């Protein structure tokens, strides 16, 4: 347990970019980009930004998340979810998938304090 030396921080304060956008017509992809390597590492921890937490936040099944990876060159965590209907179908609210990220803002992640 490292809880005593961790500070809980919200994803909105850890990441420099949090965005969502279509990836083709059947998926919405999310990019969370970090400038601070310490924050990027914390977000990759088991209490960090995980597929399980994302599924819980969006109330979707884990199998709806078709890809969840860390992309080192951009210090980013990227995940992609399958849409229920293709983009732009009647009843679909966001044709670009561009306003799907805000629920990520308040995810709390423990960040180890610098030694």
């Amino acid at each position, binding site marked *: 347990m490292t809880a005593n030396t961790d500070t809980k921080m919200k994803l909105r304060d850890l990441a420099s970019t949090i965005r969502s956008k279509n990836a083709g017509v059947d998926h919405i992809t999310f990019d969370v980009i970090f400038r601070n390597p310490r924050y990027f590492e914390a977000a990759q921890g088991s209490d960090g930004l995980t597929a399980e937490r994302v599924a819980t936040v969006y109330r979707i099944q884990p199998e709806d998340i078709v890809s969840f990876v860390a992309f080192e060159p951009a210090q980013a965590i990227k995940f992609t979810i399958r849409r229920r209907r293709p983009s732009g179908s009647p009843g679909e609210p966001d044709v670009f998938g561009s*306003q799907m990220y805000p629920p990520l803002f308040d995810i709390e992640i423990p960040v180890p304090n610098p030694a």
Partner: protein
Amino acid sequence: MRLMSPTGHLGFTPIEPGSFESGLAAKPDAIVADSGSCDIGPYPLGADHAHSPREWQMHDIDLIVRGARELGIPAIIGSASDTGTDRGVDEYVEMVREVIEREKLSPVRVAAIYSEVDPDVLRGVLKDGVTIAGLNGRKDMTPELLDRTARVVGVMGAEPIIDAFDAGAEIVITGRSSDSSIFAALPLRAGYPKPLAYCLGKLLECASFCAEPYMGKETIIGDISDDGLILEPMHPGQRCTPASVAGHAMYERIDPFTETVPTGSLDLRDIRYEAIDERRTRVTGANFIEAPTPSIKLEGSGKLGERALAIMGIRDPITLSYLDDVIAFARRKVEDRFGPAGQPGGYELFYHVFGRNGVMGYLEPVTEITSHEIGIVVEAVAPSRAMADEIAAMGSRNMFYARLPEVKGTAGGASFFSDEILQARPGYEWTINHVVPVNDPRSLFRTRHLTLG
């Protein structure tokens, strides 16, 4: 070889002329721009309508044609008129003609490469027992799916574009094309390494999106050599940094490591980004994995029905507390007349509740309404215009008449922005997102050569 990328979606918003002029002054070897995107939804492809205003398309084509002719360099415009249909290619060719004639430029050889695919051709492929595989978890193609599809385009790779230049073209207008392929075509033709050629396309496809700070429609120049790529923005306020370029490499795709084109996949797992100076970044380490068989991605859209909208609002806190009951009451009234929604060949009715989950729909985690008012867009899709109008009217007006246990008013549980049914564009759906194996990556595409001016 240095390629100039002035816009990520030609015509969607006009190109910024300042950095475009700086780009020309830097003497690039070609100008390349894509004009398409699936992001605009299935309507423009299915109905074969341009999504961007003709004036803006003309604005961008004018800049590119005059710039390319002034420098004596080739130009490629991909995915003509947003969707890359044959109509789009023909319209873009006519716009090029208009510029050449208006500006009295010397004659120019143009190649128009068409990418619409006749559904009967695909029916034949299926009949031959070939699997047209569904992408991203979709089921494989069936004749029934083709019956529901109004229009199909194939997404071309670099091969037909290279052929067009080999045949003497100076300006190439293409139907639907993959972003990375239109940029890869000239470097591949000149013999540069395949991984770098496609990687250049991947990074240049959205022009200034690979630079920081964020700006749209500003010009970027990408320089390809045998050892790597160098990216440089033409707007004095932008920088291509390792972080900005890497951030763009993963933009709008399912996973950040691969990009598929007809002959294989770009593999970015070992990619490296390094700053040359404050404004330029070098990219190395791309790989390309050849596919055993070439394949062409297909995009198709089919009509679901006519569509009508009504806009209304609710302010009454009692009505708001019973909102789901109010919507259910209105839905029941529609069902009494037309039967249940969502039946084959029937109608669909949607309530977009802004102030609750109008933006995110079923992905919205917040369930409680905390605002004093909400807005509702009622959306009806039905086989006929009259029926769509009637369902939108019934589905909205009955929110007015909903019978609630504690209601204090009479016939007025909702407000109407105007008591008016708005006729919307027909509803379409992406029916096809599939991939067909081919013997030759050129086989689905047709090229017409002409001289303009």
